[in-house]
């Protein structure tokens, strides 16, 4: 299957980006160096092209019911302009995907939502919404608009000031996890104070045809998926397909440490299983850890206890550019999850001492 390309593939190539396949998309992984891009976001501001993220638009008399039934959080808490992190779970309460749900301005008097599934999952998610809508005879329009939009993330302590300069309207009063329509170079963009770096900043959802002009308005360090990954690991944020995967590593939101996305007082697919899981407790949980010995933890490496018995698996790991220490995330039995616990990570056959740490690893907004 040919890779999907973001609207600015050619612009990034001219800028000297290296590319990688991610979720079926050919995306910039690095423009200058991961270290440089990472530092720009931690200390100043950087811009990411995240057009691989999906956009699904839901409206109509039953839009709220449909969203409520298929996401784990409570969309009725959202006023226009609010957003919320949620999971999409199966009947067993296992995470299929994680997503951010935005409540858009009402359309034709009906509540309207835009949600952002992960790269490469938009078609399956769209089908899930359609089939559930049809099965329960709900009146809602569900459009997969992934190809119609580009998405940019402008992140870092100086991101709000930069975005405020670029938009016609002031955006400094937009609170975290809320959004507004703001105009860039004459084009209306959905402008949300959200992100995936642990820093302040905005994410803009922009019409694909206007993407080039809008990208050019932001005079700051372009950043690739490499820095996006190191930034989100430091912030203790999950990556779908890596920190949970319905096929290879099925996890409930509780195990994954995102139980706050589960609103048990709402009706949704997976709710009953999750209520039982919460009552019964869960055996394993996601922890952060730092390697004390020299070495770098990577996805798939074994985690052992100090006796050398395998007790878990690394799901994400890197050399932290901010801390200059090797850090990672992984699932371990709850008895090993306490911060300060000593564990080992097996790197190419050698056991490296590790210590459980609280996440995020760094101070975040």
């Amino acid at each position, binding site marked *: 299957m040919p890779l999907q390309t973001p609207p600015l593939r050619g612009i990034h190539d001219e800028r000297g980006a290296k590319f990688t396949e991610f979720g079926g998309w050919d995306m910039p992984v690095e423009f200058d160096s991961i270290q440089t891009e990472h530092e720009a976001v931690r200390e100043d501001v950087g811009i990411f092209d995240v057009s691989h993220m999906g956009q699904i638009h839901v409206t109509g008399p039953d839009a709220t019911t449909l969203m409520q039934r298929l996401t784990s959080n409570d969309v009725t808490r959202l006023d226009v302009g609010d957003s919320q992190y949620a999971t999409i779970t199966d009947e067993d309460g296992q995470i299929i995907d994680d997503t951010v749900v935005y409540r858009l301005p009402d359309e034709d008097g009906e509540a309207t939502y835009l949600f952002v599934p992960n790269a490469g999952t938009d078609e399956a998610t769209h089908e899930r919404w359609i089939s559930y809508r049809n099965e329960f005879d709900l009146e809602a329009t569900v459009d997969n608009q992934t190809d119609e939009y580009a998405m940019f993330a402008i992140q870092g302590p100086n991101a709000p000031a930069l975005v405020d300069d670029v938009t016609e309207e002031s955006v400094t009063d937009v609170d975290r996890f809320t959004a507004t329509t703001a105009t860039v170079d004459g084009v209306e963009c959905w402008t949300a104070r959200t992100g995936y770096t642990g820093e302040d900043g905005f994410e803009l959802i922009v019409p694909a045809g206007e993407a080039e002009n809008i990208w050019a308005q932001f005079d700051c360090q372009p950043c690739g998926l490499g820095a996006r990954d190191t930034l989100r690991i430091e912030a203790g944020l999950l990556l779908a397909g890596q920190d949970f995967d319905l096929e290879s590593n099925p996890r409930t939101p509780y195990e994954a440490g995102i139980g706050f996305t589960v609103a048990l007082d709402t009706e949704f697919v997976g709710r009953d299983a999750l209520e039982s899981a919460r009552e019964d407790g869960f055996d394993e949980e996601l922890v952060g850890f730092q390697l004390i010995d020299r070495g770098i933890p990577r996805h798939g490496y074994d985690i052992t206890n100090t006796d050398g018995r395998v007790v878990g698996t690394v799901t994400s790991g890197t050399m932290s550019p901010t801390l200059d220490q090797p850090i990672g995330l992984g699932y371990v039995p709850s008895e090993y999850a306490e911060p300060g616990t000593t564990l080992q990570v097996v790197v*190419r056959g050698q056991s490296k001492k590790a210590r459980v740490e609280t996440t995020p690893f760094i101070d975040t907004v």
Partner: protein
Amino acid sequence: MSFDIPDDRRYLESHEWALETDDGTVRVGISDFAQDELGDVVFVELPDDGDDLQQETEFGVIESIKAVSDLYAPVGGEVVAVNDDLFNAPELVNDDPFGDGWMLEIDPADTDELETLLSADEYEAQVA
């Protein structure tokens, strides 16, 4: 993008270089192209002094933020020096791959093995 490929040394297809020194040992590192492909180097794992290496077998590991890559010996022989600076400053491989970013010196078991490596021109044709 063009990369430095000094013609005073020879190359393996897997991007290691080999430079004969005045005292007859062979200094080993990775090419400018290789360091650029890897990105920020954050970790190297090298053999110990006295270890015996075989040509084109793995002698260590280099890790950048995004990737893990094996290192291969351009010639066989005994390891007589290891660049310890790389343990605390692995970024030397990015900054100066043909100089301060060197990795090993090998006392070659068979100097004819050097002749089996790629010339700078041949290596350039490979990475072009």
